[in-house]
């Protein structure tokens, strides 16, 4: 930094960007600023509860639009970067968007938009009074920030933003079971983020920088001397806990079935995938060599997570708890690609994460609609739903195919990619585990379908009549159909998404464009 003392003017060109702010810079930051502003607005007008839902809906629709525009920019121009306060990186906090972050952010925004529609039905006056919509918007700000940031300490901050809003959503209603579940969820998540902070402290001590692109540049020179293996293992533990990987997944089945169904749907769809995203970002992009050393271990974790998750789902009689275990099982499938680390495998993981965001949300919402028609979440009491609503039966069947990874729904292609990558790497155990998991998931979903839709209990008539009197079927089924459209489209026309996920996987393995976006002129 040169100082021009004579004139009293300081030459800042060595430390700051002097050119005017480009339009794309605003695009990079809008997905975070927009939900934050809408959330703050809703808080200011917290007594005008009639307008909360519609304002949140408009905010989320805008968020989807901005994320789509951002993804389009990234696909045409490559990764984008902006640094706060016009500082030159690595001095300011950078936001760096590549295909991976933009795709995840767009899918997350879509899921939130659909959930906002569903919330019109699920969230009553008391839910609004406790601030469901402000919490939802702030959580989406945290989720978008986590996907788009290019600074690892900033990632920690966004994690905390969405975790603390998720606490608010989780205990909405203050029922006994919610408080019980929230206690376990909150403590274990706090421990996980503290572990993340420990790893980041060591990382700063080792690298002297927190900018991810800068870390990539410096990692090669530090590999001999620095404790990079320790860092990678700590990140694996911290984000593994966030993603609900075995054996640090026990907070998920303890809490995800307790909140309002729309909250459970949001959590099941979004939160664990942020853990998976952070694992991909740190282990594949920042510490690729260390990931290679840990690959065998990650493989065993993946197998244990997917098999034990689906076995847990088989043992549950509550539909929401069964779906919670299926969320865990899907995280195991995603970890398989992380263990393989090839472009095909990572592409499969990313595709599976997108599929899982949509499908898991849809499953929880399905549980909510089934409760409305059948009067219960328990498989002992649900019955005869096929007679009440053949449309819902069709939706449930397609979702069962999706989550089991069967055509024509979206689960098929990512599983094909993952199995192909596993076979190419001669990882027979992983390939077998993915296929066995798919088979067991079919049994779980088949049994739910059999018991809830085909079976007819003798006393079903009066209970169903009681439930049907209060049911508002159009909205619930409409929302499920909205989610079903992308799920089926991903299954029938996978090529465009496949191109994007392959690009995203390629961007993780060859991070030169990512580094080049932050430090122009240094990427190859």
């Amino acid at each position, binding site marked *: *930094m040169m*100082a021009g*003392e004579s004139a009293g003017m300081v030459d800042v060109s060595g430390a700051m960007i002097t050119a005017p702010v480009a339009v794309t810079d605003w695009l990079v930051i809008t997905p975070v600023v927009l939900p934050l502003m809408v959330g703050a607005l809703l808080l200011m007008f917290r007594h005008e509860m009639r307008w909360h839902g519609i304002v949140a809906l408009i905010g989320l629709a805008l968020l989807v639009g901005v994320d789509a525009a951002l993804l389009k920019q990234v696909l045409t121009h490559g990764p984008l970067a902006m640094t706060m306060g016009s500082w030159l990186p690595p001095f300011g906090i950078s936001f760096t968007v590549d295909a991976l972050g933009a795709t995840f952010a767009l899918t997350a925004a879509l899921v939130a938009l659909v959930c906002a529609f569903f919330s019109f039905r699920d969230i009553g006056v008391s839910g609004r009074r406790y601030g469901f919509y402000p919490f939802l918007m702030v959580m989406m700000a945290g989720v978008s920030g986590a996907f788009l940031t290019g600074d690892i*300490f900033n990632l920690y*901050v966004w994690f*905390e933003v969405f975790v*603390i809003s998720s*606490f608010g959503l989780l*205990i909405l209603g*203050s029922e*006994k*079971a*919610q*408080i*019980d*579940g*929230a*206690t*376990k969820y*909150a*403590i274990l998540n*706090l*421990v996980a983020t*503290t572990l993340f*902070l*420990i790893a980041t*402290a*060591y990382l*700063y*001590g080792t690298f002297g920088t927190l900018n991810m692109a800068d870390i990539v540049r410096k990692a090669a020179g530090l590999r001999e001397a620095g404790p990079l293996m320790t860092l990678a293992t700590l990140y694996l533990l911290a984000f593994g806990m966030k993603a609900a990987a075995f054996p640090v997944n026990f907070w998920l*089945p*303890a*809490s995800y*079935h*307790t909140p309002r169904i729309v909250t459970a749907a949001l959590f099941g769809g979004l939160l664990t995938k942020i853990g998976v995203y952070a694992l991909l970002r740190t282990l594949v992009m920042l510490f690729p060599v260390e990931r290679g050393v840990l690959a065998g271990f990650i493989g065993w974790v993946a197998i244990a997570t997917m098999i034990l998750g689906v076995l847990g789902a*088989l*043992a*549950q*009689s*509550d539909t929401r708890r069964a779906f919670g275990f299926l969320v865990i099982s899907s995280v195991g499938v995603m970890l398989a690609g992380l263990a393989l680390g090839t472009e095909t495998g990572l592409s499969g993981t990313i595709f599976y994460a997108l599929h899982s965001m949509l499908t898991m949300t849809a499953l929880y919402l399905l549980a909510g609609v089934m409760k409305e028609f059948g009067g219960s979440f328990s*498989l*002992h009491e649900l019955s005869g739903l096929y007679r009440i609503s053949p449309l819902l039966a069709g939706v449930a069947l397609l979702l069962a195919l999706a989550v089991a990874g069967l055509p024509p729904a979206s689960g098929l292609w990512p599983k094909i990619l993952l199995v192909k990558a596993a076979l190419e790497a001669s990882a027979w155990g992983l390939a077998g585990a993915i296929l066995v998991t798919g088979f067991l998931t079919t049994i779980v979903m088949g*049994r739910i379908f*059999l*018991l809830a839709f085909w*079976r007819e209990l003798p006393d079903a008539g009066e209970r169903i009549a009681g439930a049907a009197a209060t049911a508002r079927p159009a909205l619930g089924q409409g929302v499920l159909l909205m989610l079903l459209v992308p799920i089926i489209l991903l299954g029938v026309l996978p090529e465009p998404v496949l191109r994007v996920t392959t690009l995203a996987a390629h961007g993780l393995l060859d991070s030169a464009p990512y580094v080049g976006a932050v430090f122009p002129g240094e990427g190859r």
Partner: protein
Amino acid sequence: MEPVFAALVGLFFAVGIYLMLSKHVIRILLGVVIFGNAVNLLIFTAGRIMREVAAIIPQGAETPTGPVSNPLPQALILTAIVISFSFFAFLLVLAYRAYQEIGTDDTDGMRVAEPAGEPSPPIGY
């Protein structure tokens, strides 16, 4: 000075983890807060500990003249303290509400969300 702090950080971690292994929510929470402070001290120590030396580069120089402590970790700690403090406040209220609702702070007794001995799903019909 740093070795003393390193030992202190280790002690904090040990105490925090020991308390978190307890069955009682209130002890777990105390463990969590000590664990969090251990991390804050860790970051603080990693940024060097100096007395009363401002981290300012004199005019015309490229680097600081003497050894100074790195101000950035201290800024990071400020962020982390604010976050962990708000978390802790929330968790304390949550634990108190849980005690009011469930009537125990023993985690073995907190089985409302996951009741013991639930029936298995029906085998057939």
